[in-house]
């Protein structure tokens, strides 16, 4: 057992966790933040991606105990004051999701990508999201959604592409 103090979506939590408890299980089971999903058991799918201290991580391969004093942002913490984050808005506007299971991880990975590269090419978006699998969309509209968000975060006028 370890006692950790971790800030999740701006709120501090002090919790006892088993040494083996993974961050994803801590978030889902102990904090009831079930927006972070589990889609595989080998760290391929990226449904569990959250942002820890500014970097995207796969929470299925991060021990909760390692997150003592860390700041974690999950999909639940992305919207501010009732306003969707530009990525959430982009995914909605551009039909960047279908079943929605991969979406939280996809958005959190894209969040990190746009922090590092605010003006990516489509190819850079595709490579930047290599660690996240989606079975529904074929990624076409995910690329559009991330570009929508990138443009909006750069302060540009944006609208969803026509179909």
């Amino acid at each position: 057992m370890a006692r950790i103090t971790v800030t999740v979506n701006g709120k501090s939590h002090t919790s006892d966790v088993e040494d083996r408890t993974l961050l994803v299980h801590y978030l889902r089971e102990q904090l009831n933040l079930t927006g972070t999903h589990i889609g595989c058991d080998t760290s391929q799918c990226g449904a569990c991606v959250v942002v820890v201290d500014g970097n995207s991580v796969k929470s299925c391969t991060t021990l909760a105990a390692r997150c003592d004093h860390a700041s974690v942002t999950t999909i639940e913490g992305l919207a501010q004051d009732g306003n969707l984050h530009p990525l959430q808005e982009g995914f909605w506007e551009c039909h960047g999701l279908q079943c929605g299971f991969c979406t939280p991880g996809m958005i959190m990975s894209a969040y990190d990508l746009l922090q590092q590269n605010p003006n990516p090419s489509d190819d850079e978006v595709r490579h930047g999201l290599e660690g996240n699998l989606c079975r529904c969309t074929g990624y076409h509209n995910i690329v559009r959604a991330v570009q929508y968000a990138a443009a909006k975060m750069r302060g540009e006028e944006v609208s969803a592409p026509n179909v």
Partner: protein
Amino acid sequence: MTSETTTPMIGRAIKRREDPKLITGQGNFLDDVKLNGMTHAAVLRSPYAHARILSIDTQKAAALPGVVAVFVGKDLLDVNPLPCAWPAGGFKNNMNTPRAMAVDVVRFVGEAVAVVIAEDRFIARDALDLIDVDYEPLAVVVDPEKATQPGAPQLHENAPNNVVVEWSAGNREGTNRAVASAEVVVKERIINQRLMATPMETRGSIARYESSTNEFTLWTSSQAPHVMRLLLTAFVFGIPETKLRVIAPNVGGGFGQKIFVYPDMVFCMWISRKLGRPVKFVEDRSENFKSSTHGRDHVTDVELSGTRDGKITGLRVKTYAGLGAYLSTIAPGVATTLYGRIVTGVYKIPNVSIDVIATYTNTAMVDAYRGAGRPEASYLIERIVDRFAAELGMDPAEVRRRNFIPPTEFPYDNGLGLLPYDSGNYAPALDKALANVGYADLRKEQATLRAQGRYLGIGISSYVEICGVAPTAWANGQGWGAGLWESANVRIHLTGQVVVTTGSLPHGQGVETTFAQIVADELGVPYDSVLIEHSDTAGTPFGYGTYGSRSLAVGGTAMVKSARKIKEKAKRLAAHLLEANPEDMIFADGKISVKGSPDKSKTFGEIALYASVGASMPEGEEPFLDETTYYDPPNCTFPFGTHISVVEVFPDTGAVEVKRYVAVDDVGNIINPRIVHGQLHGGIAQGMAQALYENAVYDDNGQLLTGTLMDYAIPNASMLPDFEISHTVTPSPVNPLGVKGAGEAGTIGSAQCIMNAVIDALSPFGVRHMQMPATPEKIWHATRG
């Protein structure tokens, strides 16, 4: 938002009402459901593909602190094996379906052997390591053709040579004559490899039993909750249907895999009753790969005969279809009716004969996976037609054009016992695709590049499929054991809110949005006033669920019909209030007015309020606007289209780059173009993935070598191109919406499109066929003779 939600809504690319919860982490998928007192199940699965269970020792596991109980197959003999609902082709007492857990013999790697119930999922998993099972390994067969050969290991005593069913269609003698006398015959062995559906959310079940009422509630990630309820109560447990409520929470993708009844549903229910506590089981990914259903697995010998000028005269097909160790819920129908009856594709072929031998093998069960039979059919015909074109040295687009079913021949009977193709006009879709891709210029570019040692390939696929399944009487004739109609109830509450309940349900298709669009238009009410409720057997009328691209064509039509019944009643009530004749009432723009006197009118809301209160109803009328339809379609629908891909292969590395993907899909009328494009994108991606990446591989011992996402290559974003989607529109005459269906079209059109391009690129190396997936290794070898 106002501009987005004013009628008419049909045809508008509005964004989805499903999305706000999903983009904010409020999805509520199965694994997010938590119940008071809930226990957690972990499953011990067979490491052997075929073995006799000599003994199981669960004592140490049961003694682990936190473990509540351990159960094995023998404990659950008081419930029946899972039913197979589609014994297509007739069975001679050789139907074998799985039990919740194996009893004496395991027949595939991953079959459940024991279940541990514990206070949390981690303890349950720990306890699995403490169970000792003594197995006596038996001989294994994994190949659907080898399974039928003399001396092959036998899976079931009642199924000699492991044959499930031998099924045939068409005209054998005529086809034999056509092939024997043809100017040209091409033949090929074509393998449609085993695939894994891989919804990003795995499957699972949570069961709760109320001892005071003897009632179960089952939460399960399902495409068909009403069917699960029927099969589990009437067939497995032998209890009244009313004793089970099935709820599908948000479903994280299905692609067919979540249509079926599964062992975990049974053991979670059984154990929850035994222990008096809720039981939760959610697969991990490797369990999903090992023990939930797979797709495809066909080995086919095909011969196509024709004339030197490109007319097809005959098609002879023999397919071995692996169905796995047991029969899944609809498996026999997928390998026969949904495949064999549409194997002629978009072509008028005078002589066709097909034999399907479906077999048991020591592998996971095979059942419907996106497209379900039709991708296998379209891959087969489109590959062999391309092979024919190559043999003739004729342009593959031209060969297709010469053999298309002419638009004047619809409704068209292909001679294989299928329903008539409803409508079609295939040449315009081909022409549009050729124009969009710039075909003539591409062929020139291809020649130029070849001269420089670069290998461009252009692949064409013209496809047709069967959607909107299906007229019940026809399906029953195919061996289907239930109905295939769909339900919709529409009612108008006192506040004017429209509530639609249906047996159809989404798992990513956005039909809450699409359904609301059509109901809003039909009733002339605001889109936002229409609520679509689904996925819970309590509160929705019985319906058959979502698969076979049927939600809109069948479920949507049921809604239209209910809405029209409501309008008829509203007209009668308005006539009563306005003291006019019902036949003189006109329903338009949300108002009901008297013909010729537009000032004499009532709004729909006024009528709804009047009917809901019901204080002064006319003689013989009941209060409330509430109408239900059980719509059985008169025919299926037959979407079609042409896809063209451009690839470059690199002989030095064997790599394939998909440079363009142009699709022209005719899915009939389109309700929401953004959603339809999304369905096509995802469908194309899955077919492309079959062509280039995915292969579920068993070794000769029956070990699944692709048991994780490290080994099974579903594509990531950098492995797929942009898609260029457009349409022709040939409305379906089958339903009032004129829709055909879009959920599976992309997959059915795409695998052969990519393979035809890869093989076209490799034609300078003498390549005429290659089995999927076209991996770099295969291509590298192919370019070296």
